[in-house]
């Protein structure tokens, strides 16, 4: 069996969420690696859009930020932010969005704004950026985050990006498109039931279901058939280590 790191598993698992005809709004780091991996394997036509307004970017090397010049040179199109967010994202032209966050609750609501009180924060985080509109307007979102109790609390301190709200109000009622589709952590993959509540779908090789529950701040639902997460194969690991992130910027 191929040797791999947690990060490499998260990348390969995220890549598998993408389909060939998807348009995806990408962030730097793991999402960027996942998208590029998908593009080099099963989804060559995947279209990568960045919130900086570069459309179908074709980076010659790993971008260091979502506004890196390699995302602009050789792109299909570049638009002002007002148009990228309005004509693409809000208009429903982006299939998949990637989100991370400091806290995620059982309904997939995400906090990337503050730890503690908003007016008097213990830790001030970067804030939404485009996350709130990505969560509101893509057709599905994939959440990638390390799995710890602190990151999966009963309730988030601030809802930066709406998931399935409180499990009762539907996103449709509120005029929100899509919703969280998968949560990929270093321990497991979670998905959402019809009420918008998170459930355990697969655990990573070597991780127990108990360990997942232990790292989750509420009584996590278990899917009817919790399986083992498919580990990365040799080709994937080779691509990540030798082509996509040869310097190990994000994978070391």
């Amino acid at each position, binding site marked *: 069996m191929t040797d791999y790191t947690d990060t490499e598993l998260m990348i390969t698992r995220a890549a598998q969420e993408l389909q060939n005809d998807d348009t995806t709004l990408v962030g*730097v780091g793991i999402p960027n690696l996942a998208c590029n991996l998908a593009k080099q394997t099963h989804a060559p036509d995947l279209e990568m859009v960045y*919130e*900086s*307004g*570069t459309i179908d970017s074709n980076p010659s090397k790993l971008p*260091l*930020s*979502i*506004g*890196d*010049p390699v*995302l*602009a*040179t050789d792109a299909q199109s*570049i*638009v*002002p*932010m*007002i148009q990228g*967010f*309005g004509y693409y*994202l*809000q208009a429903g032209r982006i299939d998949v969005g990637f989100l991370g966050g400091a806290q995620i609750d059982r309904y997939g*609501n995400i906090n990337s*704004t503050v730890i503690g009180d*908003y*007016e008097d*924060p*213990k*830790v*001030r*985080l*970067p*804030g*939404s*950026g*485009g*996350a*709130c*509109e990505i969560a*509101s*307007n893509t057709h599905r979102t994939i959440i990638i985050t390390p799995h710890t109790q602190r990151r999966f609390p009963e309730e988030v301190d*601030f*809802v*930066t*990006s*709406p998931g399935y*709200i409180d499990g009762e*109000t539907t*996103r449709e009622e*509120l*005029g*929100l498109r899509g919703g969280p589709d998968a949560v990929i952590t270093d321990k497991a993959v979670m998905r959402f039931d019809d009420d918008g509540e998170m459930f355990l779908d697969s655990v990573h090789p070597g991780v127990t279901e108990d360990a997942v529950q232990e790292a989750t701040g509420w009584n996590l639902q278990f899917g009817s058939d919790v399986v083992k997460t498919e580990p990365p194969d040799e080709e994937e690991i080779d691509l990540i280590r030798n082509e996509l992130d040869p310097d190990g910027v994000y994978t070391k």
Partner: protein
Amino acid sequence: MTKVTDMAEAVSSAIEDGQSIYLGGFTHLIPFAAGHEIIRQGYSDLTLVRATPDLIYDQMIAAGCASSVTFSWAGNPGVGSLRAFRRAIEDGVPTELDIDEYSHFGLVSRLAAGAQDLPFLPLRTFVGSDYPEHNDNIQFVENPFGDMPGEIPVVPPLNPDVAVVRGQRADTEGSAHLWGIVGEMVEAAFAADTVILSVEELVDTEVIRSDPNRTLIPQTVVDHVVEEPYGSHPSYAQGYYDRDNEAYLAWDRRTETHESTEEWLEEWVYGVDDRTEYLEKLEVERFLDLQPQTSYGTPVDMGEY
């Protein structure tokens, strides 16, 4: 009529203490030279407006120029957090900092409303989030055309007193060609009362007029023009130089305490007179490393009619 001046003069005639200032560029074309000049001239009580405060506002906050920040994502892009920004908010060092916070589209929509003299713009953001609870600039209006959706969030115009925007090239009257990532610079330039345009190079008006669709910043909105090569270092200018990532990483290290941050400011801002002196401090190898290979766009034929 030429509007060309130098940055010291442009800043001192355009900006006053207590004003709201927008320094432009989304990761790309950030006017660092202007930010440093504002620090050197000792401004205070400024409201700093930018989607991504980036290093430039972190530096201005550390220098005590700001009393408030209007923003949507406050991080060191690709590196981590903005330590000076966080110190001001979390500990009030060196000064307390008010914040006025949006998502990217929320902030950009405010500038777009300001650019168009509209009382508000609607957007499909903020529903289901905690923003409306904490920000009175997010309101809801009813949809008079039906119930899909029945109501929609709206944000009011944002008209900074001064905007500093950069472009790759402009004529002396201030009509500028921009390419690569444009961000929200055009909206901000049209929304602001006074605009300082800084460019990598001044060119003949004929160059600008040879491709009018590329003129995203027109002279009618521009008050001062400054030619300042490498004025965006350590951010980048598409086709001219790359981002100096080493400087972004160094900022993260050098700002671990307020004192070490002040040392950085002493060395790189107060310790130099202007951008030329700043550039002289950079090693030549660093310049050479940042040069991209030439890659021209296929030109268009406008036709002579």
